[in-house]
């Protein structure tokens, strides 16, 4: 075998395990889901195979689903925005601190050592009727009745921010860390104040990281079902809860499949839009 032929084969050999995993665990189930979404659920329990558009018609026309899809995207967008506003300064601080970066990053990763569900449920102990905050407020006499702080959209967003913030910080950190600090110094020496230098140089150069973090937060946020389940009220269901409801509770696999594909397509379109935008951002960023 020639050197070129071997070199051409090598990536495929190295990729083989990952590719088989993706094919078996992602692609094949996805095909099943697509096929399922055209079946019909029958009253007798056994689903009817075939090519029926009923599930799709229901998923696309029912206002109920559309409203929840919109509120899911809204919650994900607000979460992403809050993560960006809170995460950027933190990432900047870590990237510009001397010496102890690794410890700070480790601290950032620390929450991942605790189950996401436990972390989400911990808010019940903090914000619940007999939780830490109410006990404290009652104790110092600010309130006389416990406040109902849980089970609304705000607590869902709170839980999502808690979950997703590290992803944002890490992504922004990586891009900030890669920016030569001489660039800010150069901007300062040319007459820009620190704030102007940040706006003119650092912020634009860190946009790819901000965009990557934003995409991750948005997609993970829009696809979540545990947070609204644990911290949301009955009206705060998000789209993934509908899928869960349809498949696990009602055992309506065909409808659940159509719904989950709907979310997949919406998020997929967003990723594609992002890809185009990032392509441009990368072009602008260049490699020096």
């Amino acid at each position, binding site marked *: 075998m020639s050197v070129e032929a071997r070199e051409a084969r090598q990536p495929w050999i190295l990729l083989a395990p990952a590719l088989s995993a993706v094919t078996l665990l992602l692609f094949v189930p996805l095909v099943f889901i697509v096929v399922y979404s055209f079946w019909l659920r029958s009253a007798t329990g056994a689903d009817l195979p075939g090519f029926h558009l009923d599930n799709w018609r229901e998923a696309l026309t029912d206002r109920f689903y559309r409203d929840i899809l919109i509120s899911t995207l809204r919650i994900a967008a607000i979460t992403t925005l809050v993560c960006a506003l809170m995460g950027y300064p933190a990432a900047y601080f870590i990237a510009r601190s001397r010496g102890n970066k690794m410890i700070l990053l480790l601290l950032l990763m620390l929450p991942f050592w605790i189950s996401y569900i436990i972390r989400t449920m911990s808010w019940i102990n903090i914000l619940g009727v007999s939780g830490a905050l109410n006990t404290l407020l009652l104790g110092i006499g600010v309130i006389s009745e416990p406040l109902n702080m849980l089970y609304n959209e705000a607590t869902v967003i709170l839980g999502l921010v808690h979950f997703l913030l590290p992803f944002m910080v890490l992504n922004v950190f990586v891009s900030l860390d890669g920016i030569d600090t001489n660039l800010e110094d*150069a901007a300062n020496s040319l*007459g820009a104040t620190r704030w102007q230098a940040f706006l003119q140089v650092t912020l*634009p150069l860190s946009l790819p990281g901000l965009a990557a973090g934003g995409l991750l937060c948005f997609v993970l946020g829009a696809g979540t079902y545990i947070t609204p389940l644990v911290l949301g009220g009955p009206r705060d269901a998000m789209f993934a809860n509908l899928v869960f409801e349809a498949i696990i509770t009602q055992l309506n696999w065909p409808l659940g499949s159509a719904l989950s594909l709907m979310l997949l397509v919406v998020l997929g379109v967003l990723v594609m839009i992002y890809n185009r935008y990032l392509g441009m951002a990368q072009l602008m960023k*260049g*490699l020096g």
Partner: protein
Amino acid sequence: MSSVVLDNIVKRFGSFTAVHPTSLEIPEGTFLTLLGPSGCGKTTNLRMIAGLLDPTEGEILIGGRRVNDVPIHKRNLGIVFQNYALFPHKSVADNVAFGLKYRDVPKSEIAGRVQAALDLVQLPDVGGRYPRELSGGQQQRIALARAIVIEPDVLLLDEPLSALDANLREDMRVELKRIQDKIGVTTVFVTHDQSEALAMSDRIVVMSAGRVEQVGTPEEVYNRPASEFVANFLGASNILESRCTDTGRDAVQLDVPVFGAVPVPVDKAPEVRPGPAKLVLRAEKLLLLAEDAEAPGMVTAPAVVETVDYQGQTVRYFIRAGDRQLQAINMIDGHPFAKGTQVTAAFRPRDCAGLPGA
């Protein structure tokens, strides 16, 4: 254009002193070079002048004004960084125009001044490109254009040529000097390359371990090194332990083992007093002659060639004279001496310098 004065500045990082008390006066329009080995505090000094670091002690004056508390963006300095630090997301023209936007330059004038700066660095046509589309040498010129377009009071250059390859570095050296001459801006240049320093500077500050070893013109620091460190840092020197037997009006008599009496001109050995002393003999001033050659007016000693390091135009020998190994760099005339040859090592006393020594 302004003078720069460092008045007893000190920089400490925690308990480590990077710059020991240093005083310097840089007259208006001077090209001054901070020269020294890695880690000696050159960049630290430069960053203090720039306002990127605060001196722990002492004062910095630019144009007679104390600037310790003036933030960098108000100091009106042009800085060129070793890695160019061009803004990768801005076009070349926008890079050069960057500093003008923070000065009261009318919009209509900006394009003209940017073009003039690009002309000055001889890259008139690259304004529309991005930095990544330029070669290293071109990026360096743009960095220079960006620094000088704002008509800075002082130009600060931190090893601006060190990232370029050897040929380009020499071209840029000439180019940089031409531009500095033309605009006449006070310039502080940092390098650890002695030939760069000698070729470009009006004055050289030789530094070692956070201290100034010597300040002088290139000719002064080269021919009259004030310390063994300077003698060794600027080219290869042989330092010979000797005794001063007499200090006359014109010459200082040094008694050097193997070579004998060497009358060093007083102005090249101003600090030497009777007693222990050192003779500084530059490798290129030590001539190797055939064993039986005459060398009128020169001090001589018999020697053996130990190592021959052929370098094309020149050859570097390591020779042994008595119990000392010496270095000699000679032009090649005919064939170089072969290893093991008996030769006469010779030098002129007026080419030497003397240092007090224990």
